[in-house]
């Protein structure tokens, strides 16, 4: 027996589906994220990423950096993460990434934000109620400098589709 509040509750959905995307459309993603030194150490050690630039401050300084360098793969994951609600949360597996460039180093306490543009969409020939969408996603630091850009492609559910 469901409690009464559950029967009265209205589901607040998040995100977009295939039909919501238009080629050329720009999506400014939510939240932003300040990268802390601990985020970087945790990410680099959990992924076994053994370049001392990401976890040895004195080594990073000896290579001309003002601080420990944030692992570019954490930058990549954070920028994608910020874009997920707008682009892919409604479902459809992540297919791939092309032309990803790391433009500038990111340091602890830098704040990242993400913006995407829809570059391509088409219906899947093999999966019903499913499309394939490609976005150009850019990540910026707090000085509005481009730190990363990439092209991401996902399966994207049409209305009534399911994974």
């Amino acid at each position, binding site marked *: 027996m469901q409690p009464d509040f559950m029967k009265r509750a209205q589901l607040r959905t998040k995100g977009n589906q295939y039909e919501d995307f238009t080629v050329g459309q720009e999506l400014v993603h939510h939240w932003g*994220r300040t990268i802390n030194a601990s985020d970087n150490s945790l990410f680099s050690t959990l992924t*076994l990423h*053994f370049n001392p630039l990401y976890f040895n401050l004195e*080594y990073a300084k000896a290579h001309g950096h003002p601080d420990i360098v944030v692992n570019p793969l954490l930058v990549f994951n954070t920028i994608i993460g910020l874009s997920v609600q707008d682009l892919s949360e409604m479902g459809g597996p992540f297919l791939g990434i092309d032309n990803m460039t790391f433009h500038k180093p990111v340091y602890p306490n830098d704040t990242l934000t993400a913006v995407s543009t829809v570059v391509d969409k088409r219906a899947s020939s093999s999966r019903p109620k499913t499309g394939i969408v490609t976005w150009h996603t850019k990540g910026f630091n707090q000085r509005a400098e481009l730190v990363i850009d990439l092209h991401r492609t996902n399966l994207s559910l049409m209305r009534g589709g399911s*994974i």
Partner: protein
Amino acid sequence: MKTQTLTGNDNYFEDFVPGTVIRHVRGKTVGDLENVLITNLVMNTAQAHFNEHAMKDSSFGQRLSYGGVNASLVIGMASQDTAENALAELGMDKIRFTAPVYHGDTLYAFTEVLAVTASDRADAGEVRFKHWGVNQNDVVVFEGERRVLIKRRSHWSSR
């Protein structure tokens, strides 16, 4: 700080020969620490990666490890051999997620050296790698190319 004693001596720019294929020594089993922690840390809001209950009704039947985590683990497992003496990661391309990864799967990394080219700095060169991630059943779950700026031994091995 003397830096050269902190990193290996078999992975400078001069050591990479196109065509070489490397099997990296360590694998890692994917669990909550890898998938859920990193997915949440980077604010990926897709609950397919962290809601086991919701995924029971999907065609996958369980949580999926996030592709960004799988890619990062594979590059990480390849890093001691391909990034320990890197000055910078330059970019990646042709990344494909070719099979799902579930909690409990174990990933391993393989790398082929595709090309070595001079850079505009005298003390380093650019190496292009192809990486593969495979699971415990030798199924390829990830592949992608990566460009890295790596120190030259000639300039860095005595610093």
